[in-house]
């Protein structure tokens, strides 16, 4: 022993040349406590350390004995090596490391210690900072994880990952606490069965994580953080099993794919439930057979589609219904995958959009016929499913499948505006209009389609009733602010809860306190409203004063709807018919009260009394006689009186609330007892019992999806913003081109038929002078048509009696004014004096007509038209654009002759932010050689965003001071732009632009050479005027004639 000691001291003093003898002695003493071979290890390392830093070496020796107690031999070496490497980088940190090591390691479970050292040793190779950080934060990480076994596995995984990536091994540790907390929470909800064989979810997750780690380091960390996003939607053992095993199967396809699978699967399960998940997994499997790239796309797409689907037409409360939608869509998709994967995916992608305008049933048959129509043609199928083709749209809506909101949105909007005197927006449920316009009480959400009754008229009545209701909320002040009634209600509510709190205090009864805990707690926390809060108090403020806001909101919603119903009936005799009609329908859909659990039965009773005018089923009336009477009294007292206000509803809410509260307290105890019994029973006869329960649940779900239950839904519910999501799915955002010098930019709204509203400032119109071309174009036309031109000039000079007016009593003129002549004669006889104003004259009024020619310059006008298709060389055809240009030349001659004020412009577009408006001739500009050059310079490019161009032309025209304002659009076909929606969208926008122009006193007229579909043209231009030129080559000669007809 002494020998050894001596040897050690000697060795030490060799190492620590600068250290005092005392220090060395002390160190040697300490080390003496160690088994000898360890001491030698220490000295060994100390030797290499001393070459770097003396201080670190001293700290090392000081720490070594204690650390040696915590670590095995090899680990001790690793630890020391770690320190050495740190010292290489920064001696100060190494000292610090040594000094804190014992505490840090001591705080860790025994099995974790070597792992940590190991991990840090790996990390330090690449990043000393990370290693140090990992080491230092280890106790914290462990305390966050709490579970020793889990911690051991986790550090194992981190070590595994660190083989590949230091960064990701750190991330694994960072992500772990949340992920494990989620797993543990899941274990809680699942109330783990005692089966020891079954794996715990925590282990399942860790298993997966380590599988990920074995494949690719990065994904393990990301997997854990995806788990950390929560699994609270899982409610059954089998669900987590399915999720994990499916994910694990995808690992074969690579970490990234498996990770994406897990992420998407989470969303599907959350939004669609387990059955949807199963369907979706099958679809994914089918897709995967087609290749890795496509399945990855599919996986990536899924969350967005599901989120959009979940938002479509459905409100949050209808979570079950949401499952149904996603499930049904997946059914269809699965069916389609069996024939063509790509087509199935297109359909999947478009499903939210289709469902925004159609019912589930419509969607199903639409999808099937799409797959049938284009079984293999992917391009056409894409167009079909993007809802671009007309067949597709027709098929989606079906010929007589109820009434779509779209078809009557404008009508309803006028209706509601008339009723309320306010600007209102109509939006389909599930979509949200442009942010700038949205606000409380400005938007009315209506189902996008109603196909309930089998007749259009009756379907419409439902819309009408719903719209009247929405208008009623505005007219009868649901959103009133700070009225005396509301203030009174608030103080009554506050008083109620303060009283409740006092009661609880005074009883000093823990049992009671538990039951009324919420009241008690809330009333204590509640502070009185500040003056400015009172100033702005509305029903929401009042509801916020309740202990259980959710309960109060639910009651309030029903009662308020009852009040509005009553007031509507009082104020409008006629709407009663429609409300009764709808009420009848609601009554037919009521569940039998007796079959509902007590709590639900009470709501149901309230609903029936308020909305249906009384409890509809006899048994229920008997069983709940007492509470029914109480409800009836409240409703009669507060809601059914004249001019009841939202304040009355609030007070009624309070009364019902306290009634239900009491009822609940009574029943709670009973129920608990009976529930336990029931559960015992259920276990025995699980199969049949479970089934009937499921049926019941299904029945309830159906009820929830009833369009009428809108009335019982919270006025307050916010709708998820899915439209952005949809946009993202469907259209790429278009980018703005740079303006050139001299360009002017204007912004115009665009009509979105699905929103039933304009998209504000959606289009940017760039106004630019048209480029100059050769002048000989115009001269050539003049020469070619010289005969026609002279006759046109002649005709136009004679033209327009409309602009001439007979003026009587003139000094000179074309005709005698008979009255004046008689007066003259009589006057002369009686007085000898008479007026000489004896004539009638036709004089032209000031400026009367201003006309704007708007020329479609899109690339489709490059098409060549020929009369002699068989003689392409000897008699070549002409481009449409050139024919139109010739027309403009002749038109200018005519207009110059008649003297009308006119402008010529053309337009093209490249996306909504780049609508180009080329000015050829402005109003008031002379028909100069310069203008002739610009006519010559007209060419074709890009697309046709007609709506924006019309809006711009109309705005210019409105500024003209003329009695008749004409806008003549020369077009060769339908409006189209790459981000101009489907053809229907473009058409509706164009129609709307034309309609607006018309209301602003402009007469639009379209000359078109599109012969393809008269019906479509009629739809587009029918409200204004239009003419189709069949023989395109005759356009130039015909234009002046058309103009003449229009202006006479």
């Amino acid at each position, binding site marked *: 022993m002494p020998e050894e000691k001596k040897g050690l001291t000697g060795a030490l003093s060799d190492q620590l040349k600068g250290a005092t003898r005392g220090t060395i002695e002390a160190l040697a003493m300490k080390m003496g406590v160690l088994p000898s071979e360890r001491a030698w290890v220490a000295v060994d390392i100390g030797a290499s350390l001393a070459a770097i830093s003396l201080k670190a070496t001293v700290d090392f020796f000081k720490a070594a004995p204690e650390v040696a107690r915590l670590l095995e031999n090899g680990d001790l070496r690793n630890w020391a090596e770690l320190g050495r490497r740190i010292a290489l980088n920064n001696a100060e940190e190494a000292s610090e490391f040594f000094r804190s090591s014992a505490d840090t390691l001591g705080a860790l479970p025994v099995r974790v210690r070597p792992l940590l050292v190991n991990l840090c040793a790996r990390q330090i190779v690449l990043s000393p900072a990370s290693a140090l950080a990992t080491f230092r934060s280890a106790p914290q990480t462990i305390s966050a994880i709490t579970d020793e076994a889990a911690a051991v596995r986790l550090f194992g995984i981190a070590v595994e990952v660190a083989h590949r990536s230091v960064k990701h091994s750190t991330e694994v540790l960072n992500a772990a606490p949340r992920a494990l907390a989620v797993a543990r929470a899941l274990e809680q909800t699942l109330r783990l069965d005692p089966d020891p064989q079954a794996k715990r979810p925590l282990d399942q997750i860790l298993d997966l994580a380590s599988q990920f780690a074995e494949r690719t380091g990065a994904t393990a960390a990301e997997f854990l953080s995806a788990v950390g996003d929560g699994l609270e939607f899982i409610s059954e053992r089998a669900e987590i099993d399915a999720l994990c095993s499916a994910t694990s199967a995808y690992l074969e396809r690579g970490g990234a794919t498996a990770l994406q699978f897990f992420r998407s699967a989470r969303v599907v399960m959350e939004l669609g439930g387990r059955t949807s998940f199963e369907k979706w997994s099958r679809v994914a499997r089918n897709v995967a057979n087609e290749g890795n790239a496509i399945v990855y796309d599919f996986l990536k797409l899924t969350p967005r589609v599901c989120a959009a689907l979940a938002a479509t037409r459905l409100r949050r409360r209808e979570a079950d219904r949401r499952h149904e939608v996603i499930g049904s869509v997946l059914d269809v998709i699965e069916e389609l995958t069996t024939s063509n994967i790509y087509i199935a995916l297109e359909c999947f992608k478009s499903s939210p959009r289709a469902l925004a305008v159609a019912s589930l049933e419509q969607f199903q048959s639409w999808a099937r016929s799409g797959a049938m129509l284009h079984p293999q043609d992917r391009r056409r199928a894409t167009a079909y499913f993007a809802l671009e083709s007309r067949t597709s749209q027709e098929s989606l809506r079906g010929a007589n499948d109820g009434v779509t909101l779209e078809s009557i949105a404008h009508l309803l909007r*006028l209706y509601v*505006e008339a009723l309320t005197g306010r600007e209102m927006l109509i939006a389909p449920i599930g979509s949200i209009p442009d942010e700038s316009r949205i606000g409380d009480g400005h938007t009315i959400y209506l189902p996008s389609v109603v196909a309930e009754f089998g007749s259009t008229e009756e379907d419409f009545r439902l819309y009408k009733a719903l719209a009247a209701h929405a208008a009623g909320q505005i007219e009868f002040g649901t959103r009133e602010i700070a009225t005396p009634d509301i203030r009174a209600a608030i103080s009554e509510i506050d008083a109620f809860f303060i009283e409740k709190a006092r009661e609880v205090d005074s009883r000093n009864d823990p049992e009671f306190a538990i039951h009324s805990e919420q009241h008690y707690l809330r009333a204590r926390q509640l502070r009185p409203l500040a003056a400015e809060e009172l100033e702005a108090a509305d029903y929401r403020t009042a509801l916020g004063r309740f202990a259980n806001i959710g309960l109060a909101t639910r009651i309030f919603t029903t009662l308020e709807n009852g009040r509005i119903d009553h007031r509507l009936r009082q104020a409008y005799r006629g709407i009663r018919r429609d409300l009764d009609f709808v009420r009848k329908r609601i009554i037919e859909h009521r569940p039998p009260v007796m079959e509902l659990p007590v709590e639900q039965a009470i709501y149901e009773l309230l609903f029936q009394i308020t909305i249906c005018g009384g409890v509809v089923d006899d048994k229920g009336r008997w069983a709940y006689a007492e509470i029914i009477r109480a409800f009836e009294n409240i409703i009669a007292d507060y809601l059914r009186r004249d001019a009841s206000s939202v304040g009355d509803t609030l007070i009624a809410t309070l009364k019902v609330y306290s009634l239900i509260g009491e009822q609940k307290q009574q029943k709670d105890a009973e129920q608990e007892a009976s529930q336990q019994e029931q559960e015992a029973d259920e276990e025995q006869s699980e199969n049949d019992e479970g089934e009937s329960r499921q049926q019941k649940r299904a029945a309830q779900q159906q009820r929830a999806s009833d369009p009428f239950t809108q009335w019982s839904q919270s006025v307050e519910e916010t709708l998820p913003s899915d439209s952005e999501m949809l946009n993202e799915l469907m259209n790429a955002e278009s980018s703005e081109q740079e303006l050139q010098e001299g360009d002017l930019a204007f912004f115009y709204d665009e009509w979105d038929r699905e929103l039933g509203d304009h998209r504000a400032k959606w289009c940017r119109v760039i106004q630019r002078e048209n480029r100059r071309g050769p002048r000989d174009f115009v001269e050539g036309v003049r020469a070619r048509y010289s005969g026609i031109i002279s006759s046109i000039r002649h005709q136009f000079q004679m033209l327009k009696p409309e602009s001439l007016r007979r003026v009587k009593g003139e000094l000179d003129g074309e005709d005698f004014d008979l009255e004046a002549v008689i007066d003259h004669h*009589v006057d002369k006889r*009686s007085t000898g004096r008479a007026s000489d104003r004896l004539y009638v004259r036709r004089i032209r009024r000031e400026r009367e007509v201003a006309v704007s020619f708007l020329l479609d310059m899109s690339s489709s006008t490059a098409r060549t038209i020929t009369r002699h298709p068989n003689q392409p060389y000897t008699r070549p055809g002409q481009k449409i654009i050139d024919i139109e240009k010739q027309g403009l030349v002749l038109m200018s001659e005519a207009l110059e002759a008649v003297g009308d004020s006119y402008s010529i412009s053309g337009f093209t577009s490249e996306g909504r932010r780049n609508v180009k408006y080329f000015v050829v001739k402005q109003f008031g500009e002379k028909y100069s050689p310069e203008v002739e050059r610009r006519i010559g310079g007209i060419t074709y490019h890009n697309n046709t965003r007609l709506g924006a161009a019309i809006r711009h032309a109309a705005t210019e025209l409105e500024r003209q001071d003329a009695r008749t304002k004409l806008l003549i659009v020369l077009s060769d076909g339908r409006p189209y732009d790459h981000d101009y929606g489907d053809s229907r969208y473009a058409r509706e926008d164009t129609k709307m632009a034309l309609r607006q122009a018309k209301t602003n006193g402009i007469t639009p007229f379209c000359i078109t050479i599109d012969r393809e579909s008269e019906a479509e043209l009629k739809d587009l231009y029918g409200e204004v005027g239009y003419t189709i030129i069949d023989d395109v080559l005759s356009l130039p000669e015909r234009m002046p004639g058309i103009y003449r007809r229009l202006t006479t």
Partner: protein
Amino acid sequence: MTQPLSSPAIPGDQAIEKYRIKKEPYYLSIKNEHALFETAHSAKLPVMLKGPTGCGKTRFVEAMAYKLGRPLVTVACHEDLSATDLVGRYLLEGDDTIWHDGPLTTAVRHGAICYLDEVVEARKDTIVLIHPLTDDRRILPVEKRGELLSAPDDFMLVISYNPGYQSVLKDLKQSTRQRFLSIEFDYPPAEAETQIVAREAGIDEAMARDLVKIGEKVRNLKGHGLEEGVSTRLLVYAAQLIARGVNPVAACEAAISSPITDDAELQRSIREIITTVI
């Protein structure tokens, strides 16, 4: 031709008698328009009545004429109305030429109230004719007879003007506008309008109230496609049809939705309003 032109000009009280209002017209006062009008009359100031069509301007003038005990000479202005038409002319009777006062001259001579309805429709040179009558000179030159009539104190000039149609072409010149006091008219408030409709058509008040409610709602659509709201006059028409046994919804369509617009969608929405109310 307006009626007065073909009647013989018998100077004296008989001619003016037919302009006298025998029976008290029913007019429900809305605010203080009575008082303002009376004061204007006693202060010898001309008055301009502004307001949408069919809201009671003509009826008001009739009521005031009755109240003030003055005859009321009404001229509906139009594009061809000449100065001669207003002032008067010589007419042949057998071999004689006899002077006939125009309506304006008649009114001035007899200290009546002269009401030029829709004055913007008249030719500009005709409008100028009233300028000397509407300032403190209060004179009417009858050029053909070389006469200069000065208006008696009781004479009063009233014009009506509907700013709703405003177009650049049809606007009163400032030099004309600024010669008149102005009384603003609008559709009567619901209560008053209900009374008016009930009384004018002889229907019960509940029905009248519904009609007025329809009117109110439809007026909300002004600017959303409607140029003007539905007038009290049309509501009275609808009520009259109902009083004669026409089905109320049909009556409203005939008297309300169809007259005020040609736009099919607007008509439909107004119909829905009608069936909501009745």
